[in-house]
């Protein structure tokens, strides 16, 4: 496959996704070795350009690049010339002039990763742009589902929570549909995307009606500032209707898994005991994130001399 940039799941074909997942399979073994490093990206420079606070994604990308022996730069919007008012374009041109091979960008503005490709020759990997896409998150989620449930095709996945503001939901729904899973989005209408005609999903407002047939219950973080914006009346009401507690959990079929991209709001979308009960899957998502990012970096940068 020829992966120039990784901006959106919409740019990928079914085979591309499978290749990324299969390649990641090989990367997971590396984490079990005493020396967790291979020299495939030696001499290559990867820059993590982060305009938004992120702990897990940045560390995950950093570890992924380092385990492939790439040199890694971390540029955050705080503590660089970005805070002096330098534009994204000029920052990108500076990185270009310094000869970076790939830019991993996290940005609060939808579309920033795609815009970057117009300004630099470096390969661009989208680590989350606004409410648009977060492709590596979706890929690591698929990887985790495949690992736990043995397949993607035919899985019934219920995604619950703040969909409209979620880049994870946009990437995940598309990736799952590409591999033949059935996706249902559920939540209050104010947090579901308006005009979802082009989403490959079914829309529902009835969480309880869906739980009995779900293979995966994927919970998204609900930010309390959405409450102030009147997307829902109160956290208590949200938790009562769309939050997952032990009682709701009991309706899931045997073998179904609960996933969450983190960070979790315990007590809102997920009760603390539910989070603890499914902590191993949620931890696996984090672990698999490194393998998926290694896979993407390798497929983007590894083939070149």
């Amino acid at each position, binding site marked *: 496959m020829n992966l120039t940039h990784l901006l959106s799941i919409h740019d990928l074909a079914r085979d591309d996704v499978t290749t990324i997942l299969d390649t990641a399979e090989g990367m997971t073994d590396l984490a079990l070795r005493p020396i967790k490093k291979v020299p495939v990206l030696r001499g290559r420079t990867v820059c993590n350009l982060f305009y938004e606070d992120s702990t897990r994604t940045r560390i995950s990308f950093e570890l992924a690049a380092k385990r492939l022996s790439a040199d890694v730069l971390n540029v955050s919007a705080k503590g660089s010339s970005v805070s002096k008012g330098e534009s994204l374009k000029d920052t990108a041109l500076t990185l270009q002039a310094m000869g970076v091979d790939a830019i991993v960008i996290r940005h609060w503005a939808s*579309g920033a990763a*795609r815009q970057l490709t117009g300004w630099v020759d470096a390969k661009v990997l989208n680590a989350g*742009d606004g409410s648009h896409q977060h492709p590596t998150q979706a890929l690591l989620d698929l990887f985790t589902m495949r690992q736990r449930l043995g397949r993607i095709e035919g899985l019934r996945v219920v995604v619950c929570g703040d969909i409209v503001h979620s*880049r994870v939901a946009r990437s995940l729904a598309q990736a799952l549909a590409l591999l033949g899973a059935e996706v249902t989005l559920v939540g209050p209408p104010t947090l579901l995307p308006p005009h979802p005609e*082009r*989403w490959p999903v079914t829309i529902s407002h009835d969480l309880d009606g869906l739980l009995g047939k779900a293979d995966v219950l994927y919970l998204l973080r609900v930010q309390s500032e959405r409450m102030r914006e009147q997307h829902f009346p109160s956290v208590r009401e949200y938790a009562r209707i769309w939050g997952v507690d032990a009682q709701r959990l009991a309706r899931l079929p045997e073998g179904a898994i609960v996933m969450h991209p983190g960070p979790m709001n315990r007590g809102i979308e997920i009760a603390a005991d539910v989070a603890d009960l499914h902590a191993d899957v949620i931890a696996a998502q984090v672990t698999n994130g490194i393998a998926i990012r290694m896979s993407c970096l390798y497929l983007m940068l590894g083939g070149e001399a």
Partner: protein
Amino acid sequence: MSAVTFSGCRLVDPASGTDEVTSVTVADGLVTAVGGAREGREVDAAGLVCAPGLVDLHTHLREPGREDAETVASGTAAAAAGGYTAVCAMANTDPVCDHAGVVEQVLRLARDAGHCDVYPVGAITRGLAGDQLAEIGAMAAVGVRCFSDDGLPVRSARVLRRALEYARTWDAIVANHAEEADLTEGAQMNEGELSSLLGLAGWPREAEEIMVARDLVLAAGVGARLHVPHVSTRGAVELVRAAKARDVRVTAEATPQHFALTEDAAAGYDPVYKVNPPLRTAADVAAVREGLADGAIDAIATDHAPHAPEQKAQEWVQAPCGMLGLETALALTLTELVDEVVSLPEAVALLSTRPARSRDISGHGGPVVPGAPANLVLFDPEARWTVDPRALRSRSRNTPFAARLLRGQVVHTLLRGTFTVRDGAVISQ
């Protein structure tokens, strides 16, 4: 001044109902003959259309305040290049055109440049802040006929009603940006299937339609003149059409971007396609075209909005709204509308005659008859050209039509008998 006769041109002049191949003679700033014997120098105009100079109801000249993006001189040169002899300069300058001083400054700069007549639009409220009325009377005294807070809607129904009432003193026109801002906080593009996929907050069409409906009700109640700028949704077109049927004193404009582009252009996140109101759907484009064809919409206006390159080379969310328009409006009208949606005379009416009348601008928009000021454009309706942003006369480059092949090219523009464009080149006075 010596006479010039344009011979063999097709004179299209909706004001006099003329559409015939003839000659037009100009001397001493006036049209002196139509179809008369050759007088003075002869210019072979065979194959060209001669029409009254174009009139733009919605232009941003950016001066004073953002001379890096456009000046009165560069903007009016762009206007002349596009076939315009009159443009209405919007009030959102810095300082705001909310008092007679800025009006006079813009008028003086326009006179000095000599490319095109400029009719400043005054602000409705001081500083475009939406609460206290600007000195509408003082601006009317120096010739202002239309008042608008430009891209900032007057949110308060009370303030807009007061403005409509007060403007009746001069039978002046109030143009209110049609956007219920409560529904568009953070809006980036048309709300719809595409914004949902792109993760950009949407401008719901309801925001435009609610404001158009409110303003029409207020204008009808007061009996004042309302102008609806850049209509962009099917619902808004229908509201204006229905109000006209009830004899509400309303005029409306539509822009080339809203009849030639759809929201699909936003898919690559290039801010050159970011505009307010946003590019809408194919169904809205069809409705705008219907409105232009049946008279619901009175004028094609450009909303020419120059922005310096660094302003548009930002994240989509950060970049300002607006597109260049003066140098492409005529060609887009010919390419997209003429023969399919409107006839050539109807196109000239939409670009010149009706906008001039809607704003009480005399001397422009025809009629092209002996004794009238010689404000004319001669264009080749068949010439093909490709839009090259670097070749534009505007100081800015933010055209969404770069590399587009268009038909219809301006050959000569005359302002009171003086060439402002000759053989396609802008003439500095």
